[in-house]
């Protein structure tokens, strides 16, 4: 994904060993080690924003490699927030870099200039967003601090309670009922909705089974025909993955005469040779079923 590639820039230097100096340093945050920069990802962003580092001189492919190996080290302990942030930042950087690398002649076009500005704006937004995140950290720290102090909040001693002036409600019956409606209105949860992530669960293994049934006769068919009954893209993908799996096991042969052309599929194995675990590695581990991130039963019970 490195859009640079100019021979003179430092990014032409061979990538360092991705495991060396990469990934989690002491604080568990993502650090990058490039030939012209080493430090936290955040800092990299700051330097670019202050024009102390030219975005065109950053080997984005290396940053990405490092992030991937960071993810591998982090394993299940991956912080979703960090991963998301990385994606957003990396995508913006890439966009920015692509724009900066455009031959200057083309930038004379008004539209291109506008596009460039739009990207800078996007980057500025990113920085603003990050700044407020850091401000939120400050608020969090103070909130935690303050949570260790308990204000004196006790009822008035009876003698003082009796001295209280007569209370005024200040509302009539109708206004009071309106307040009740307002107070009793169900509240929507604050959390970011993940409902858009609720894809139906598709099992590659199951699709391998379907393929095996259709192909076991030995006839030659096409991928198009094999997927004609799929109703979603996800099913097509699952079927394709299953097909690849069958291919690596030598159960089917695949032939494509022209690029992007029709894919011909032929069953080559013995009738019962294919194991039952085809596609299993694509599916969730059986014991992980209940914890899968992708569920079709709606994680959040919320009104539509």
């Amino acid at each position, binding site marked *: 994904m490195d859009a640079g590639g100019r021979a003179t820039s430092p990014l032409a230097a061979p990538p360092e060993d991705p495991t060396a100096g990469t990934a989690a340093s002491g604080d568990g945050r993502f650090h990058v080690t490039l030939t012209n920069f080493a430090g936290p990802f955040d800092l990299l962003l700051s330097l670019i924003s202050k024009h102390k580092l030219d975005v065109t001189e950053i080997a984005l492919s290396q940053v990405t490699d490092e992030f991937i190996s960071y993810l591998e080290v982090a394993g299940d302990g991956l912080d979703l927030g960090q991963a998301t942030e990385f994606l957003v930042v990396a995508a913006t950087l890439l966009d920015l870099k692509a724009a900066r690398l455009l031959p200057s002649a083309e930038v004379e076009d008004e539209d291109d200039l506008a596009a460039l500005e739009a990207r800078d704006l996007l980057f500025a937004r990113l920085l603003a967003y990050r700044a407020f995140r850091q401000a939120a950290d400050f608020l969090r720290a103070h909130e935690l601090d303050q949570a260790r102090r308990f204000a004196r909040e006790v009822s008035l001693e009876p003698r003082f309670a009796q001295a209280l002036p007569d*209370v*005024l409600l200040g509302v009539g019956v109708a206004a009071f009922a309106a307040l009740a409606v307002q*107070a009793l*209105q169900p509240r929507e949860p604050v959390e970011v909705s993940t409902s858009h992530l609720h894809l139906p669960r598709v099992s590659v293994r199951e699709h391998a089974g379907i393929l095996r049934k259709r192909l076991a006769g030995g006839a030659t068919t096409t991928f198009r025909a094999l997927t004609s009954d799929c109703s979603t893209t996800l099913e097509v993908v699952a079927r394709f993955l299953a097909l690849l799996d069958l291919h690596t096991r030598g159960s089917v042969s695949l032939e494509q005469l022209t690029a992007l052309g029709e894919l011909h599929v032929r069953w080559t194995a013995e009738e019962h040779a294919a194991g039952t675990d085809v596609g299993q590695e694509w599916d969730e581990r059986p014991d992980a079923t209940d914890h899968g991130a992708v569920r079709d039963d709606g994680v959040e019970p919320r009104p539509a």
Partner: protein
Amino acid sequence: MTTAIDERLRGAVEAILFVVDTPVPAVTLAELLDVDEVTINEQLHALASEYEQQHRGFTLRPAGEGWRLYTREEYADHVERYVTEGQRARLTQAALETLAVVAYRQPVTRSRISAIRGVSVDGVIRTLLSRGLVAEEGSDPQTGGGLYVTTQLFLEKLGLSSISELPDLAPLLPDVESVLSEDANP
């Protein structure tokens, strides 16, 4: 009392007494702070006489089966003036809304009100109690939490003779009941 005041222990006792408005038995403090009752009693007496010597704005006195902090008698006039002049006669929006929840859901526990309001209602309930608009009546058989109801004074303030005269909310709150009861059993 010849016992030197153990500063940490004294501080802890003081902090606990500071947040409760019921008398705290010495034995409770002893258990909580993991010292024997004799030591706690020494601390309490030492603290009480320290407040006297320093002539603080509050005093520590035995009350019922425990100890409790009170404002010092001689400053009662100032406090009373603050309470009568400084306090708002009008209820805040938060207090009114909480009152509305109690009125329409009574008898209701504090945690239920809190769940409906989405915030802690301790302070507001305290205000409503001290203003005589709500009262505690019995407790929830399941959770043991106190149940709150509105009072006669509340009805008077709204010019109603009975709770049944409150307008029906059902037409205004479509399907809210089911959502709320789901909410109560997460």
